[in-house]
């Protein structure tokens, strides 16, 4: 009894101290940012502050900062700051979905167009800009990739790019090889390079599993060329990879490379960055990758601008040779934004030639054609981009499947790692991927699944 009575005041005292600690920690936490922001604003009327959330990829951050700086200069009453803290890949997707669902989204964010956008439920979550006049500055081919049946939600940032294969011009010249126009020629070239003693005749980098998808996804032009409506049938559950011969070829191409043993010996552990380094320093002969990677390679080794060329994933006949195109990502805003007028002004700027100029002036090179009217590429682009432009000029392009259909199975990268490593054959892999796609279609609530 006595002990308990002695303890009681002590316990109360402890509780008071604990409470006081919590209070002080809270107040110090909130007061600091307030103080600093009022200090910045000074006596003038405070400009409206907007946050633009982007991923951590360095190129994206550079572009976002260049465009935001250009906008801030032209609009002193608004300050756009870049918050480059969104993790890449599906981790970032989940973070963004959660922030949107809980009303905690940033004023604006940088996100993919195409199938990934559809998963954000744009009709209820995002600011509809379908009736804004500045959309007329944006090329028509881009609009469907940021639209649903009920609205349009984003303005393009960055440029369109191709999916294909980077090749080393010096190695091709040394061995007297021609740029391949059919898949068989490509395999023969690769074999010749390997036989000449190059360890990196064809680089794959499964250390970053997403890179395993490039050959298969960039092969979509060849499906499109044979059946332009294939994407619609695929979305409606009428066509599948396993039962369409030309679509199955995309998986078989990956298997060819594994069967012939054409890959670099460390394909299973090499990372994306290491692969780019290897390609840029001249050790690598060929690397299938999206065009945006050329910026990094030129940054690493400036001579890459002249030494690295580009070609599309070859099909089975030379007459049908074309490029699969990835549309640029876009800037979006949540539907319940507090600063709608200011956000729209920023979007208008992004969809104007001023934004491309701000980016190019800041020294951030463009890895492909802009989709904003009035934006032009400078003349001194790297050779790889020069190799890519004729596909656009001749109209031999097709959008990647993810811009034509909202469904993409989440396990594709692992499945392709298995095919490329010789663990699973192409037919089995295609069937497995069709099952994977089914889950995505059901989750999106599409008809026919």
């Amino acid at each position, binding site marked *: 009894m006595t002990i*308990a009575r002695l303890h009681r005041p002590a316990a109360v005292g402890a509780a008071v101290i604990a409470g006081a600690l919590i209070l002080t920690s809270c107040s110090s936490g909130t007061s600091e940012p307030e103080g600093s922001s009022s200090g910045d604003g000074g006596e003038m009327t405070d400009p409206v502050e907007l946050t633009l959330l982007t991923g951590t990829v360095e190129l994206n951050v550079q572009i976002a900062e260049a465009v935001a700086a250009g906008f801030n200069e032209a609009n002193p009453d608004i300050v756009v700051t870049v918050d480059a803290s969104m993790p890449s890949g*599906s*981790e970032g*997707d*989940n973070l963004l*979905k*959660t922030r*949107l*669902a809980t009303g905690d989204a940033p004023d604006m964010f940088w996100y993919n167009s195409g199938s990934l956008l559809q*998963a954000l*439920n744009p009709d*209820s*979550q995002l600011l509809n800009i379908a009736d804004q006049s500045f959309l007329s500055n944006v090329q028509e081919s881009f609009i469907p990739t940021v639209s649903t049946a009920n609205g349009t939600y984003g303005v393009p940032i960055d440029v369109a790019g191709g999916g294909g294969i980077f090749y080393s011009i010096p190695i091709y010249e040394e061995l007297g090889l021609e740029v391949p126009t059919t898949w068989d020629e490509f395999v023969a070239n690769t074999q010749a390079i390997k036989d000449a003693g190059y360890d990196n005749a064809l680089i794959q980098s*499964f250390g970053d*599993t997403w890179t395993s998808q490039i050959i298969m996804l960039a092969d979509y032009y060849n499906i499109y060329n044979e059946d332009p409506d294939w994407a619609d049938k695929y979305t409606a559950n009428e066509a599948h990879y396993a039962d369409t011969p030309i679509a199955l070829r995309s998986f078989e191409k990956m298997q060819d490379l594994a069967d012939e043993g054409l890959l670099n*010996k*460390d394909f*299973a*552990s090499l990372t994306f960055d290491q692969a780019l380094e290897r390609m840029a320093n001249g050790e690598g002969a060929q690397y299938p990758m999206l065009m945006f990677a050329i910026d990094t390679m030129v940054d690493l080794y400036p001579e890459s601008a002249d030494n690295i060329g580009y070609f599309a994933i070859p099909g089975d006949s030379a007459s049908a040779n074309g490029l699969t195109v990835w549309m640029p990502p876009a800037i979006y805003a949540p539907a319940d934004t507090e600063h709608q007028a200011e956000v729209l002004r920023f979007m208008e700027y992004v969809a104007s030639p001023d934004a491309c100029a701000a980016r190019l002036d800041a020294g951030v090179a463009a890895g492909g054609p802009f989709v904003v009217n009035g934006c032009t590429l400078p003349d001194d682009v790297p050779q790889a981009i020069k190799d890519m432009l004729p596909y656009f000029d001749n109209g031999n392009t097709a959008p990647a499947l993810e811009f034509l259909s909202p469904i993409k199975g*989440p*396990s594709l990268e*692992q*499945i392709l*790692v*298995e095919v490329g*490593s010789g*663990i*699973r054959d192409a037919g089995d892999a295609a069937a*497995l991927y069709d*099952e994977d796609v089914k*889950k*995505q279609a*059901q*989750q999106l*609530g599409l008809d026919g699944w």
Partner: protein
Amino acid sequence: MTDTLTRSGSDAKPETPTQANPKKKKRSPYPIWFYAPAGIIYTTLFVVPTFASFYFALTRWTIFESEFIGLENFQTFFSEPFLFESLINTMIFAVLTSGAKVVLGLLIAVFLTSQIIARGWLRSVVFFPVLISAVGIGATFAVLLDPWEGLVNQVIMAFGAEQGPGWLTDPNLALISVAMVDIWRGVGLAVLIYIAGIVAIPQEYFEAAKVDGANAFKRFWHVTLPLMRPATTTVIILSLIGGLRSFDLIWTMTGGGPGFSSDVLASVVYKQYQAGFYGLSTAGNVVLFVVVAIIVVPLFWWLNRREVEQ
């Protein structure tokens, strides 16, 4: 000795209920609302989410909205082509790590309770990996075990081998490699539990055995080992549950790869979550919960019964 202990215990009893009626059920001197803080935290952070998850497992859930679809998620989850493989992998991983922690833990504990130089320091060294975050360990070992530039294979190659094994890139080896790292990380805790058990064995038993002429091995086999049964039960249960649920090391070291060859139940569930299949991944979690319960509850009961029989 035991006699006096029990008597003093029973002597003390009648004195405590000074005012309360001995016939009435003994009441706690603390009011019931003392439970409130813990109760609120437990309810909001555990009970509500658990029961909510049983509901959401039956829906197609996009975070923004959910649609009731009955048991379809479970059907999809069980028709997941990698599920069976991952179930097998989970079992291999759990049994391998749990078994190794029992055997190695006991041996190291016996060693560290004997009279050796730098015993305290060695104990800290063995326990140290338990204190590091699993993600840090995973990232570090992923670098060390790199098939070409990793330190481990560099050493192997320095001894003349042309090429070391692809620890994390060979589909047949990846899961085993991760299990080895998990054993390295978790054995310290098993050792700690065993040391506590060994130290608690009265020295008289060892002295009596010595007088009877038992050598060191016999003393270990007939004295230490039987008296270690409660500690062994604890180690088995803890490490088995940990092994069945293990995720962090596997995710940071292989991501379930190459392909799906080191996927376990928890990583399959996480991949469904990553892909945005929230209902499906919740259903997977319910499956994981049931699997762990089906394995651990009977095992716990069986081990404890044997303990009592002893």
